[in-house]
């Protein structure tokens, strides 16, 4: 008996530590959300090793392929949690180490989320087993209006799970940014211009012994590629007037790239955003004037933006990015649907659109031949709160639906221990 328990324990440890090797898998007969065309009512998905080979009706199983019957199931690309602090803290409060929190005045733009990401953080598995296979993460430096450099990570728990570092620079251009620039938006924009100038003049300016106008050398160095248009600025801003100011700034600096995170009042400037091709990361549950910069917040923000032609990504608002609930991307998207966003657009907003906007659309975000095999099989509509994954593959490797939470569940389950 004890030997049997030990064997089971050993098997569990193996399952947790050594993910199954990549294989050839045919997922057969599910309702397939491809993101490249219409949803297939009854479709197959074939992948070998890390890549998708074929998607369509009635794909023949290659010799030796593992066949998974997905009848009555949904099959989708893995979701991308498009903005969070996932993996930057095991516990965010309680005085515990929190790498998403950075209060030093010595470094801000140079802070790098990828250097702090822990693939073993409990939240990674907790998020993964709900159908999220990748995450966009951001640090939260507070020394200047630049909060640091974000990254894209895989949620497979692997040592090499940072997929893209130096993906974007977080730029605070709303109330928070104004506070950091001295308390006023009137100072915010001149400050930004001076910071970009410092960055462009790096290293010459600093080598001559001169200080930056506003930036320390370490931040100027980190900011330089973004200031030259080689990376994206992820702009935290909410108010319509601030977004208009951003669009004016963009016209004056046409080489710079911007994505808005927040955008509670973006619906008021939807046409301008569409014309300027600035994507917006919105939280479809934001509908209260919770700050003075969000007086016009409303539940159908995502739907109105999409209708105007703005590329919409769905993720928690800047005030709710604690990575422990990054898994709620599906619920957020479902609520956008309840408030007018078409289902397909809502699903893309947590998969394909963030993949494209963050430069990995060629690899991720859809089920199509050649794409990375991030595949999730569901017991129902993934945007409905009642549904959950029944199987999950990251780059073709099946990952067990186990987390610290499911271990606690199993220990205390009244169904198992009456």
């Amino acid at each position: 008996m004890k030997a049997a328990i030990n064997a089971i324990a050993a098997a569990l440890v193996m399952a947790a530590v050594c993910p199954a090797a990549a294989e050839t898998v045919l997922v057969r007969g599910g309702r397939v959300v491809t993101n490249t065309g219409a949803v297939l009512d009854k479709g197959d998905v074939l992948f070998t090793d890390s890549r998708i080979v074929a998607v369509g009706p009635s794909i023949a199983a290659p010799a030796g392929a593992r066949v998974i019957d997905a009848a009555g199931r949904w099959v989708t690309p893995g979701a991308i949690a498009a903005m969070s602090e996932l993996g930057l803290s095991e516990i965010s409060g309680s005085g515990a180490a929190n790498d998403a929190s950075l209060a030093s005045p010595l470094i801000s733009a140079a802070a790098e989320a990828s250097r702090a990401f822990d693939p073993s953080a409990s939240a990674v598995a907790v998020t993964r087993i709900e159908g999220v296979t990748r995450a966009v993460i951001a640090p939260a430096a507070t020394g200047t209006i630049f909060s640091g450099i974000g990254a894209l990570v895989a949620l497979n728990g692997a040592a090499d799970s940072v997929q893209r570092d130096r993906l974007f620079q977080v730029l605070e251009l709303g109330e928070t940014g104004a506070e950091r620039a001295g308390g006023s938006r009137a100072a915010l924009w001149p400050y930004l211009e001076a910071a970009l100038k410092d960055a462009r003049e790096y290293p010459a300016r600093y080598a001559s012994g001169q200080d930056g106008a506003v930036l320390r050398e370490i931040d100027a160095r980190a900011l330089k590629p973004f200031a030259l248009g080689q990376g994206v600025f992820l702009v935290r801003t909410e108010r319509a007037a601030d977004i208009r100011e951003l669009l004016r700034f963009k016209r004056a600096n046409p080489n710079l790239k911007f994505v808005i995170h927040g955008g509670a009042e973006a619906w008021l400037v939807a046409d301008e955003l569409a014309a300027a091709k600035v994507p917006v990361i919105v939280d479809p549950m934001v509908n209260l004037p919770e700050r003075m910069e969000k007086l016009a917040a409303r539940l159908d923000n995502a739907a109105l933006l999409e209708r105007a032609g703005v590329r919409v990504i769905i993720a928690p608002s800047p005030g709710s990015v604690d990575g422990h609930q990054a898994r709620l991307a599906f619920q957020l998207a479902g609520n956008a649907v309840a408030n007018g966003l078409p289902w397909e657009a809502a699903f893309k907003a947590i998969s394909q659109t963030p993949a494209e906007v963050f430069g990995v659309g060629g690899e991720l975000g859809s089920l199509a031949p050649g794409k990375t095999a991030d595949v999730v099989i569901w017991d129902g509509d993934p945007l409905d709160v009642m549904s959950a994954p029944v199987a999950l593959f990251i780059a073709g490797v099946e990952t067990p639906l186990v987390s610290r939470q499911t271990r606690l569940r199993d220990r205390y389950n009244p169904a198992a221990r009456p």
Partner: protein
Amino acid sequence: MRTWTLGIAGALAAATLATAAIAQEAFRTVRPPTDPYPSTYTVPTAAPVIIRGATVIDGEGGEFASTDVLIADGKIAAVGQALPPPAGAQEIDGRGKFVTPGIIDAHSHLGVYPSPGIQASSDGNEATQPNTAEVWAEHSVWPQDPGFSRAVAGGITTLHVLPGSANLFGGRGVTLHPVLGARTVQSMKVPGAPYTLKMACGENPSRVYGGRNSSPATGMGNVAGWRQSFAKAQEYDRKWKEYWRKAARFEPKEDEPKGFFRAKAKDKKGAGDPPVAPDRDLEMETLAAVLNGEILVQWHCYRADEMATALDIAKEFGFRVAAFHHAVESYKIGDLLARDQTCSAMWADWWGFKLEAYDGIRENIPFVHARGACAIVHSDSEVGIQRLNQEAAKALADGRRAGLQISRADAWRWLSLNPATAIGISDRTGSLKVGKAGDVVVWSADPLSSYAVAERVFINGAQMYERGQVVAPPSDFELGQSFRERAR
């Protein structure tokens, strides 16, 4: 009368006696008011409403297909098939829709932490000393909080507003209807709802006060703080009861002669001087009312071990814990909670934001339910309060996946009847039982889903919300903001 009395007494009436007589006549037993800020809530007059042919979830575990619900005179008048329409009733086609009791949020900070959440509006935590049992949340509620209108749109018909959790004793909670356009908090108060007391376990009090190098700085300091205060409250309560016992002998009775004769009669019995009322202490007054079972304890507590200790404290001082709030680890002690009939007001899935929330699991609510304890879905959030039905749905689905058999009708208890029990109003609302309040929501579809929305919300039989029909924001704060003028 008094002139005649003194006349008879004549020369015998010494000046001292006359003074005593006047003092006796002036004697009134001091009884601190128990309801000095009474509810002024009035039920809006409304025609009877009959909702036809909906799937009805009654909040007590029952679900009925193609059923009618009649609301009349502010109350549930009938639930059944093919009900005869009363004269003048408003008929609502409920086919394809769901009807449930209104959602009751047992843990809200609307009004005390309103939107916008700026320093000037941060009225939820009197974090100035660890025992502020003397403060009342209703005195911080801003009726213009735009959050109330969002809550109604999410199917909320009653909410329990609590002070924050910085203190061992945070103050009194208040039970409100989300009355849109209310000018006063009194007009939102649910008539007859008992007062509650917010208490807080764990990291918050020890962090807030320990950080100031004062007590409590630790978990044991928390426990000492509660015990010392309850011990004082016992003494305070004893003094008042002793005073009332003595005062009863001096209180004039209806048929008793007033004044001098009465005083003399008392003197004969050797009653001595009339008693002097103890000084009022508002902090102790609240705690004494807890000891007497008049105020219901709502205890913010995350960890199983801390909840178990809290239950022992309640036994030591002879009160009951109505509900633990947040109760992230209730799933570990469902048996103790069932034994003491203490509810747990929980999130579906919040976890990890602090150490005491580290063991949060998605099955907390269904596991507590399955152990036979009272499970509640609460929000603690101006966002979450708008979709507690979705939180219940998540908990239900996760419970089923763990192997539990729970119907959606049973799960609805978490949203209405159980919170009503925790805050002491289950005799009048929380389920669609005939005679209970007409607190009813009509949902566009099965409300245990991401997609269903509340189409109509009735509070005491009056329609407070209809989707798509809100023409002006009920909050003065939101009225006339320029984007609204532009959108016209």
